Structures are given as C-alpha cells and as structure tokens.
C-alpha cells in the first residue's frame, strides 16, 4: 500500500532534446525508475516512487509530464 508508484510519460523541451540523457539522469536521482528514452520524440518513460507526485518531476528541461495511460485495441 505504501508502494503505489505512478507510471509516467514525460516530454523534454525542443531545445533540451540533446540533453535528454542527463535530464533522465536527474529524474533517476530524484528516485524515479527510467524505463526508456526516446531520442527522436524527446520522451522519457518510467515510474515515480510513491512519495513523489508528477508535478514534482517538472524539473528544468521537462515540457510536459502525464500519467502513462492504459490503452486498448478499439474493437467490438
């Protein structure tokens, strides 16, 4: 119950795309688990520990951060 981590997707600012690896490193130092770094898209995916909210992760270089939504095949 204390280990409710939140999976997130985060985008970096256009002018910070070259620094995406060091931004990911900073998130890691805040306690995040980094799942992947998408260099073209400028997106970092991962999860936060339970004591950090997504808004806390809006550090320098991060443009947007959103929960990692579940999606499904859209069929009837």
């Amino acid at each position, binding site marked *: 119950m204390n280990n409710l981590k939140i999976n997130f997707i985060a985008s970096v600012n256009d002018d910070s795309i070259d620094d995406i690896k060091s931004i990911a490193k900073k998130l890691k130092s805040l306690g995040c688990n980094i799942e992947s770094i998408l260099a073209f898209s400028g*997106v970092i*995916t991962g999860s936060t520990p339970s004591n950090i909210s997504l808004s806390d992760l809006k550090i320098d270089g991060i443009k947007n951060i959103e929960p990692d*939504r579940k999606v499904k*095949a859209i069929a009837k």
Partner: protein
Amino acid sequence: MLTSQEIEQQTEKKPKFTGKQLVMLDSNATNKTINTQAKNASLKLATFSDYKNDVQDFYKAFDEADGIVFEQFGVAVVNEQKEEQVSMLTRSSGSKNTFIYSEPERYVYALNDSFEEFMRGYKSAVDNIFSKITNKGKISSVQGSSFLDDSVASWGIHATNILKTKFTGKGVNMAILDTGFNLKHPDFVGRSITSKSFIRGQRVNDQNGHGSHCTGILTGDIKKLTGRRYGVAKDANIFIGKVLSNAGDGSDSGILAGMEWAITNGCKIISMSLGASVEPNEDFSNIYNDLAKKALSKGTLIIAAAGNDSRRDRDKIAPVNHPANCPAIMAVAAVDNHSNVANFSCGGINPNGGQVDIAAPGVDIYSSWKSPDDYNSISGTSMATPYVAGIAALYWEENPKATASDIWLYLIQNAKRLILNASDVGAGLVQAPK
C-alpha cells in the same frame, strides 16, 4: 409556408455569363508583347495600372478600349463580341504562348440558400426525427450510397472506390501499431514485412486477431482462395509494431516507443486502432500532440480510431478517444454500408481538440484474422482507421513529393461529403485517388 408565387420568385433563373471573356496570360509576358500581339488581332487593350488613380475610371477601359489587362494576376478581361479575336490570339502560333486560354466571365451572386437547399435540409431533419421515433427505416444519408459485400470485394472496398484507382501504395512504408500480425497468413506470402514487439514476453505473431484484421484492411490484397478483395494498399511495405498484448492491452509508453520506431524507420503513415476512453471536457495529451506535430513536419502522418464508446440508439454520444483526440492526429469515425454513422462511433463533442476528421467503413468489415481461422468480419472505428491509412498511401504514391500535411489535405479534399454532422463524420467518407 411560402406561397407558390414566392417559390417561383426564388427559383427564377439568374443569368450566368456577362458576355465578356477572361483570358489567361503568360506570367512572363511584358506589357509591350501583350499589346503588340493584341493589336495584331485588332484588339486594343488597356492596362489596369493606367487607371490606378481612380478605381472607378477603370470601367472607362471597357469603353475606350476593347478590354483591360490586370498585370498582377496575368489576366485580361475582353469586351463582349470579341470572341473571334480572342480565339485567334489563343490559337495562332505567334500569340498562343502569351494568350494561353480563355473562358467566359461569370456573374457572381451573394450566396443565399436556394429554396431547394432549404427544403433539403428540412427533409433531412424530418427523416432524422422519423427514424429516431419509429426506430425503423434506416435512411441512407446520401442517395445511392449503399454498398454490399460481393464476390469481387468487401463492401468497404466498394464504398471507398479502391477498385477504380490505379495506385497500390507501392514503395510507401506504413506502420500498424496493434496486437501484432499473423505472420504466416496465406494472403501475405512474399510481402515485405518488418516487425518488432514492444510487449515484454510476447512475440510479434498475433494471437488476438485485431492486429491481423487491421493489417489486412490497410495493406492486404485479395483472399487467394476466392479472389475477393479486402485490402487497400496492397503493394505497400509493412511495418508491424506489436504495442498491444495478445489480450489487446497496452500503455502510452509502449505506444510512444512504437511511434518512435516507425518514424525512425521511415514510415510515412502510422495506423493506430487503439485508444483510451476520455471524459467529456477532458483535454488531449500534449505529449502525443507535440510528437504528432513533429512527425507531421518530418513527413509522417498519424491516423487513429475515434473510439467505440457511443450508443447512438440510446442517444449517447461519447467523446473521441485518446490519442485520436489530438488535433495533429487524424481521427477516424465509422460508417455502415448505408453510409450512416455507426451506432458506436464516438463524436467530436469535446470543446478543446477531440474532433472527428474523416469517416470510413467500420461495420461488418471482412479482413484477415489470426491463425488458424485467417479471416473474420468485425466492427469498429478500428476497422475504419486502416481504410484511411491505406488510402493515404495511395495518395503518397500518386504524389511522391507531398508533405504529410499535403496528404492530410488530399484525404479531406476528396472525401465524399455526407449529409451528416461534421462532428460525427468530419469531412465525410474517405475516397481513393482517381
């Protein structure tokens, strides 16, 4: 109600042509050339810039000369009864490179709805109410727009004019992000297929069916056994990204990784028959929209399903799903074989983003399936999406230098307009290039 006299007045025919002629001029021709050649054909033409001090005086040109040249537009307007002279100019070898072609000058009128248009709208509203109250008599939204499965092709292929186009998506890289693909499907032998699984512990081979079905519509050809056509871009290069598990589940992180893979592998089109329901008034994802905008600018068009959450027979219209609700992602609604919007098809009800852009066949659609069945008919905006994506490939083959935004435009421009709400079907029923 209008009196019969009023009806008559409204439908009275207004004259169409003024009697003058518009002549297209070569944009590089000098005023001197134009005037000299016109003189040789016994035409005296004034130049608009001669009259620029008093705009009203330019009408004098039609009295003092035989017409006027608008240099900025490269067009000349020639007086009535000079057809012979104009014809000589556009046909003679000495002048036809300057005077390129002519057409009659039209009257233009302020656009008031004609009486016929008014009654058409009235009839459509009454038909709508009738079918809602009585729940019977599905009225075709456009006369003569019902289609059937037959031995030649599925109804969706007929409805989108695939059989009449010469384009097949040859040379176009297209990605499907879904539950994978039935890699041993008999109708895909010899096709170029690149694939990658983004689902931990699962291979690309589709054990759900959904991904195979969408791939079949997008880039299939015919059922080899019967020759029945069910696929659109039959010569395209296929990129299968398994971003949904065999149970049909996935997450944004997997989808985004699949999108990155497709874009960096040179895919011009990404077809995504997947999504998540959204609440009324919920905003679209900035992360997806920013990526889609970037992809568009770099030459990749992303197309996604609007979603199946509506129950229109119970007056419930649900908002367009994530990520199709992003403005930079083309959202596809589903229509049935009478060109009516499908009962389940989501609508553009959210005020910020979430618009339906276009519609395609999405009810009882025949296509490929997982092994061993290999074929199935199912419904959904999932089925409509690969029709649009496949047709995008056809436009790209027709226009190899087009940008992704150009292709978006061609799809919208050439869609068959339906007498339905744009919030339900966008620009209308997608059509293949002629």
